[in-house]
Structure formats: C-alpha cells, structure tokens
C-alpha cells in the first residue's frame, strides 16, 4: 500500500472519529447511551452479520479464506519437525497468525473498556441444568471453579481444558476445518462436506453435553 493512501485512510478515520465525538456530545445523554450499549452483551442480529462480514473482508483484501484452526497447523509447522503433514512454508499463513493475535488483543480491549458487569444472561433452563451438574459460578465468561489455574489439576479441569483442547485440535484438522472454516465459510459457499462436518460437530457436542459431562462434573 502506498504511504499516501495509508495517510488518507488515517486522516479519514480521524475525521470520522471527531464527527462522531461532536454528535455524541451534542445529543442528550449521547456518551452515556453509547457506553451503555457497548457494555451490554450484543444481540445475535448485530454480532452474527459482523462476524459474517469477515468472509468477504478477507476475500477482498487478498483472496484469503476465513479459517482459524489452520493456525494450529502453522504453529506445528513452525516447530519444524520430521512429520510430513507439517512440511510446508508456514510463512504463507503469517496473515492468519497475525489475525489470531488480533483476536487476543480484541479480547483484551473488550475486557478493559467494555466489560459487562452483570452475571451472564443465559436462559433459566440452562442455568438450572448446569446447577444440577454442580456449576455454582455464573459470573464472567467461564465458570472459574473449573477454568482456573487451580482447577487445572482437578478431574473436571483436565477433561474440560486439556482433553477439550486436544480434541478441538485433532478433530479440526481431521475434519479439515473448525467453526469458522466449515460452519461459516464452508456453509456460506454451499459446500456439502462442510454440512457433514457441522452435523459431526453437533453429534460430538451432544454426546459430550448429555453423556460425558454428567459423569465428569
């Protein structure tokens, strides 16, 4: 990208920001309303389309396809072992590794400025089902009774965090994609294999939820 174009984008962004700032200052309660909105959990009809737009953004930017789990393979390729599956130039996936670092930073920004102070607003039915399984904590994004460094040494902690992660990595590569690659990019491109994979995702998720979790938690 030429420096002049980059400057143009920068100046335009600053002008947009200043204009938004002026409007929010003039409108009665503008800033309070905006902060309120941002710190509330976003409804599905806002979040879903915003996530869907990632697909054309990546295609238009450089013909790239949205698929997060490819990064796990790139990380194995960085390790540079003798395994044939990881013998390729991982630098072709630098853009994707940078994207996933951005996701981490985005999570951090949300925590710092936009955190929701209320307990998670899951349905009452889920809350009571989970309480029956022994979940006592409904604050934050994950139940800290399991998802914490102390919880890591407990039986549930090992299944949820270690086994869970292992199966996510193994299954995503075997299936050739994860939620972003199959459920979003693949289904959107009307790929039948992706539909089969998504049905598999649900088969596995239902077995874990209704058969294994009651035994583990």
């Amino acid at each position, binding site marked *: 990208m030429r420096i002049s174009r980059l400057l143009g984008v920068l100046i335009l962004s600053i002008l947009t920001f200043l204009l938004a700032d002026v409007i929010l200052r003039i409108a009665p309660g503008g800033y309070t309303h905006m902060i309120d909105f941002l710190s509330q959990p976003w409804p599905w009809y806002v979040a879903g389309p915003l996530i869907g737009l990632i697909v054309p953004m990546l295609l238009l930017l450089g013909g790239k396809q949205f698929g997060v789990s490819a990064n796990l393979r790139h990380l194995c390729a960085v390790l540079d072992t003798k395994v044939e599956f990881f013998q390729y130039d991982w630098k072709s996936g630098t853009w994707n590794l940078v994207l996933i670092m951005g996701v981490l930073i985005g999570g951090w920004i949300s925590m710092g400025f936009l955190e929701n102070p209320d307990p998670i607003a899951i349905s009452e039915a889920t809350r009571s089902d989970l309480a029956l399984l022994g979940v006592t904590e409904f604050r934050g994004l*994950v139940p800290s009774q399991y998802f914490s460094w102390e919880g890591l040494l407990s039986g549930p902690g090992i299944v949820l965090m270690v086994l869970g992660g292992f199966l996510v990595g193994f299954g995503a590569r075997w299936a050739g994609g994860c939620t972003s690659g199959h459920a979003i990019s693949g289904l959107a491109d009307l790929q039948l294999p992706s539909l*089969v994979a998504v049905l598999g995702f649900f088969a596995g998720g239902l077995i874990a939820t209704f058969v294994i979790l009651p035994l583990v938690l």
Partner: protein
Amino acid sequence: MGASRLIPYLLIGIYLGIVFTKSEVISWYRIQEMFRFQAFHMYGIIGSAVVVAAISIQIIKKWRVRALGGSEIVIPPKEMGSGTRYWAGGTVFGLGWAFAGACPGPLFALVGNGVTVMLVTIVAAVAGTFAYGVVRPRLPH
C-alpha cells in the same frame, strides 16, 4: 508479506476479538446453552453470519469481483471423498468444543479476556493437531 500489508489482518483480528467477546460466543455457558437447545442466541449468530457471508460470496462470484491487489478470487471446493473425515473428524471436534466451551478463535479471545489458563487449552489444541499429523497416514479420510 511486508509488515504494513499485515496491519489490516491485525485490525480484522481485533474487530473479531471484540465481537466474539461482546456477543459472548466465547463463553462456555453460551456453548452449553447451544448444545442444550435452550436459546436462539448462538443459532442466530452462526445463522446470520452464514447468510451475510453467503450473499457476499454470491456477489463476489457473480460480478467476478477482484481482490485489492487485482488478483482473481478463487474459492477451491472441498473434496467429499468417502466423507469419513468430515463426520468422524467433526464429531471429535464437537466433543472438544463442548468440553472446552470454545472453538479455536474464541480460545485466543478468552486469553485476551484474562482467562490465561486457556493458554493450556491452546497448547493442548496444538498438541492435538500435531498428533493428527503423526497418525494421519493411518486414519480414514
């Protein structure tokens, strides 16, 4: 790829991390709610994301829109083969998704949100990917 060309991907990642967090799709509770069919939230998110992505892809294909650098946009179709890899691999992934309560993208967003123990889950996911690479020649696909 030069560093300046990578900046847009970093920004897209940050945007995605914020949306992931604010829509709570990175929450173990929301994934449980989804697998128990007790709320529309996750279905609405995935469904509307697919619709928006599908319309965009159709437009790109129909008008033969090119990428910013001028190159043609090609989306290679996925090979069905015997289909085993999709249902079997998908099921394995689904088990992990319900246990960890997060798929690969949200794992990184959770670390950013201060759930640092998810670094262990990310390492486990890399280990799982590596194990797949090792046994791949012996697995049905």
